[in-house]
C-alpha cells in the first residue's frame, strides 16, 4: 500500500478534491502547513498564501494514477510537491 503526499497551495483545494473524486479516491486526510520552496515562502498569513498537505493511502496502481494526474494537472499551475511512501495498513481491504 502507498501513502501519497501532496503539498499544495490552499487556493487549489477544490481543484485537488475534484481530482481525487475523478480518480475515485474517497479517503484522504488534509491539514494546513507552512512551507518554503522554489516558488517562495508560503507563510499562511492569509488564505492566499496558505499551504495544505494532503495524505492519501491507496493501492499501488491507484497511487500511480494519482501521481500521474498530479504531474499533468497540478504541476503546471501550482506551487506543489508530490511524493510517495510505502506503508503497511491495517484493514487493507478498506483502501
Amino acid at each position, binding site marked *: 500500500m502507498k501513502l501519497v503526499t501532496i503539498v499544495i*497551495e490552499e*487556493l*487549489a483545494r*477544490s*481543484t485537488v478534491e*475534484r481530482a481525487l473524486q475523478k480518480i475515485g479516491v474517497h479517503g484522504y486526510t488534509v491539514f*494546513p502547513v507552512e512551507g518554503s520552496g522554489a516558488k*517562495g515562502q508560503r*507563510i*499562511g*498569513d*492569509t*488564505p*492566499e498564501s*496558505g499551504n495544505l498537505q494532503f495524505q492519501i493511502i491507496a493501492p499501488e496502481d491507484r497511487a500511480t494514477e494519482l501521481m500521474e494526474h498530479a504531474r499533468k*494537472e497540478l504541476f*503546471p*499551475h*501550482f506551487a506543489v510537491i508530490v511524493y510517495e511512501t510505502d506503508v503497511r495498513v491495517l484493514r487493507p481491504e478498506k483502501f
Partner: protein
Amino acid sequence: MDFLHAIQANLLSPPILFFALGVIAALVKCDLKFPETLYVTLTIYLLVAIGFKGGAAIAEAGMAKVWLPALAAVLLGALIPLWCYPLLKKVFGFNAADAAAIAAHYGSVSAVTFIAASNYLKSLGEPPEAYASAFLAVMESPAILIGVLLGKRFGTPGVSSVPMREILHEALFGRSIFLLLGALAAGFLAGKPGLEATAGFFVTPFQGVLTLFLLELGTVAGRRLADIRQSGPRLLIFGTIMPVIHGFIGTGIGAACGLSIGGTALMGTLAASASYIAAPAAMRLSLPEANPSLYLTASLAITFPFNITLGLPLYLGFARWWISL
C-alpha cells in the same frame, strides 16, 4: 492646502497608523505573525458588520433611492475589466491570462478600502449614504465573471478545464460575496430594531477592530513589498494610475446618480479599489494559468496602500469637483 490637510487627517487616523506599523513590522522582520484564523475571523466580522448595517440602512431609505446608483455600480464593475484587459495586454505587455486576472481584480472591489473610506469621510463631516454598502455588495462579482470569461476566451485553450458551473458558483457564492450579500439581506429584514439590539457588537467596536485588522493587513502587505521589485515597474505604474482614473470615473457616475459628496467619493473609491479576497480565490480556481503573485502584489501591496493613504483625499477632491459642476 485643504487637500494637504485632508491627507494629513487621513494619515494620522488610527487605521492608517496601524497599517503603517504593520508594514514596518514586516520590513524589520519582526516575528509578528498573526494567526490565519485571526485574519479570517476579522474578515468575517468586518463583512458581516458592514453588510448588516447597510441592509438596515436600505430598509430605512427604501429601495427607490438605492436601485439607480446600485445599478450604475454593477455596470461600472463589469465594464472596468473591458478596458483594463486590452490595456494590460497591449500597453503593459502581460499575457492573456495574467491580463484577464488583473483586470478582474480592478473591476471588483475591496471591502476594507470601502470601510476605511467610510470612516474617513465621516470623520471629515461628509458621511456617505448609510446604504452605500449595497454598492460594495453588488460590485464584487460582475468583474470576476467578466475576467474569467476574458481569460477563457483569449487564453491558451485546453488548459485545466474547470466546469463553468463551478466558476459561476465561486464568483457568486464565494465566501466574502456570500457574507456581504447575506448580511445585507439579514439587515434589511431585521431593520433598525435588529441593528440596535446588536449595535454593541457591530457598531461600538467597529472602528477599533478595523484598526487591528489594518495592523495585520500591514504585515501582509509589507511582506509582499519585495515582490514589487521583482515584477518590475509596470505593476507599480498600473497599480497607482488606474485607481486614479477609475476614481475619477466613479465619482463622475456617483455625482450623476445624485449621491451626496460622501457617497460620490465612496463610489469613486469602490471603482478605484481592487479586490484581494474574492478575486484571488476565484482566479486561482478558474484561471490557474495566471500568475497569482502579479495580481496579489498589484491589489494588496500597491493599490490598497495607495488608495487608503493618498487615494481617499483625492477621490474626495474629485467628488467635490464633480458635484460643484
